[in-house]
């Protein structure tokens, strides 16, 4: 950018020449890395509030319609949910070790672990897609020929309210859907990171994008860590 023509006079210009990843408005790479890290943590705080709004609605309705919510929860595929939780935990492991590999400058290991992360992310989405398809077939997707009669039928002793069950499923699809959207974005981000790693852009001195992408991925994992018990484990006795 020719805007920045005058910056060459300052002593720190030397660092700007040596470190091409250092952007002009930062004094040094430490400041840049600190800013990036702080920026990602602040962004994650906004995401906590974004999901939080849905959690608020979910908790209020769960309290109001407990039996119907419990019935809806029991209809979810516990094996798929547990497996998905494990898949995401594996992906968090690969992300954490990928960041470590970038800190140590181990390019091949980094690329392998990034591919593994992408793999686990896609597996998660695949299992989720399978669950959603299953729910669609059983008429548990609101709007698409929704019917909760099977739940009423299966739980004759409980006071199942079909309308309340529809609210459960609406929130279930909203929560898991928005979570899945965040996973897709995460996979997109990590694809870019993988390409950057392939092109040898990272080193022990500069691997900030890997770190902050990692923070985002772990956050999406943590959201699922809470979604799993809240949605799948309401009452499995």
């Amino acid at each position, binding site marked *: 950018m020719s805007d920045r023509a005058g910056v060459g006079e300052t002593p720190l210009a030397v660092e700007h020449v040596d470190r091409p990843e250092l952007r002009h408005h930062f*004094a040094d790479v430490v400041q840049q890395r600190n800013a990036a890290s*702080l920026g990602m943590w602040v962004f994650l705080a*906004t995401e906590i509030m974004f999901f939080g709004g849905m959690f608020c*609605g979910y908790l209020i309705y769960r309290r109001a319609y407990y039996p119907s919510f419990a019935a809806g929860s029991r209809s979810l595929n516990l094996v798929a949910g547990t497996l998905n939780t494990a898949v995401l935990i594996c992906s968090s492991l690969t992300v954490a070790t990928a960041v470590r590999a970038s800190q140590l400058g181990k390019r091949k290991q980094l690329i392998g672990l990034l591919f593994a992360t992408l793999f686990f992310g896609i597996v998660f989405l695949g299992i989720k897609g399978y669950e959603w398809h299953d729910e669609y077939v059983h008429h548990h997707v609101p709007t698409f020929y929704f019917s909760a009669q099977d739940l009423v039928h299966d739980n004759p002793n409980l006071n199942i309210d079909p309308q309340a069950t*529809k609210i459960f499923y609406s*929130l279930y699809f909203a929560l898991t859907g928005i979570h899945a959207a965040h996973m897709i974005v995460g996979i997109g981000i990590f694809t870019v990171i993988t390409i950057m790693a392939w092109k040898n852009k990272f080193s022990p001195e500069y691997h900030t994008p890997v770190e902050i992408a990692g923070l985002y991925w772990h956050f999406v994992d943590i959201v699922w860590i809470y979604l799993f018990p809240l949605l799948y484990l309401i009452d499995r006795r």
Partner: protein
Amino acid sequence: MSTTAVSTERQNYLNSEYGIRSWLLTTDHKRIALLYLISITAMFFLGGFFALLIRLELLTPAGDLLTADTYNKAFSMHGQIMVFFFLVPSIPAVLGNFLIPMMVGAKDLAFPRINLLSWYLYIAGAALYIWCIMSGGVDTGWTFYTPFSSLFSNTHVVEAAMAIFIAGFSSILTGLNFVVTIHRMRAPGMTWSRLPLFCWSHYAVSLIMLLATPVIAITLFLMVLERTLNLGIFDPSRGGDPVLFQHLFWFYSHPAVYIMILPSMGVVSEIIPCFSRKRIFGYNFVAMASIAIAVIGFLVWAHHMFVAGISLYSALVFSFLSYIVAVPSAIKVFNWTATMYKGSLSFSTPMLYALGFIGLFTIGGLTGLFLACLGVDVHVHDTYFVIAHFHYVMVGGAVLGYLGGMHFWWPKISGRMYPEGWGRLAAIIVFIGFNLTFFPQFIVGYLGMPRRYWQYPAEYQVYNVLSTAGASILAVGYLLPIIYLLWSLRYGKPAPDNPWQATGLEWRTASPPPTFNFEETPEVTWEAYEYDTMPLPEEVTLER
């Protein structure tokens, strides 16, 4: 530090590059601020057009200018445009973007490309909203209450809601940039206690933007899902709860009003010391009060819902907390007036706006306390009393702060002085027009005139006529600055670096500033607001 008039050949951020690409792809925070300035001014006049429709209709008791449905659209779109597309971005996106890097001594914000993205998100949201208007508009009230918005309204609710959803992310990114910049980009010696109070206000505003805006984003999204997929989560006939929507909506929308007022308070905190030639009284209290307003402002949202069906105990708690939130605002008012005590006052245009702010914000704030009282609220909820209250704080407060700030920093932004006589005249016209518009609304609201009605009993007409008359005067007051500020770009006196002899790092660089703000990174060794060591400005003359 040059005190002579700037030569127009010297390179600055305006002439460093030419061409539309250099503006639309800029990452210079100052250029982005100007992009925002043009956009929000356009949206302001669009929102003002709907206000014109409202005030024209209300000249007569009968509903004779617009149909009831059209009137519903007029007040809904007036509110949504003014809140989401004008007031929320205004000072932060224009003055905050322009000044904060300079005030902390940095070359730019922490994330310049994200800054540009935030403008594009704002434009995308505004474009979608304009599409909504052209398709027929929205009539749900600015508050989108369910189940009307999610079920019964036949208007373009989805487009309006998604437009605001997109614009919300613009807000979030702006707040993120400010927080990281203030934490990480301060120049050597610029400690927290030396930061201008404008920065403290914007830090507090950013906290609100970051923590509250995501909640309205998800709320509007859920409402859109409800409407498009016929879900029932907010529909009482299907077990849903409209009050849940209101809780989630107001969790953002109450702190949003502090997003709208805190930046103006920051502006006033800069103007008052400068035109009193005196250090701000109680710097720490003003700084902490900004943070307190942001924090406590999150605890009061259900005072918008006192008659919506919330529990009595909940209402009592929110009422009490709403009284508490007035305390830090009052602290600021006392500190500003104490700053002026025994100061050497000059009534320049920015000072007139700042003084107007103090008076009108006080009235608006105090009437908020009337509303916080449960018994009174039952009587005046959804009447013109509420409308008068929030226009006193949002127009008498926020807009006056915005205009004062635009005039105060105009020399820095444009390199030109505006004509002082016209500036003062416009400020006085705004003040008179504003009071004539909105004071009668307190009275007619208390007498029982409901809000959002397009016809009313004949006994209320005289107040409505006064109000519309005031609005026409106010409109003149708004148009004048557009004209003379644009005029000044070509014919205004070239501005020196520091025409007001103000403290603050932004005044220690040229007007207009160079692209990367400072010739050398400043090193700060002085406290903020050291007016006792500053020379007096040249007398501000009424040059035409």
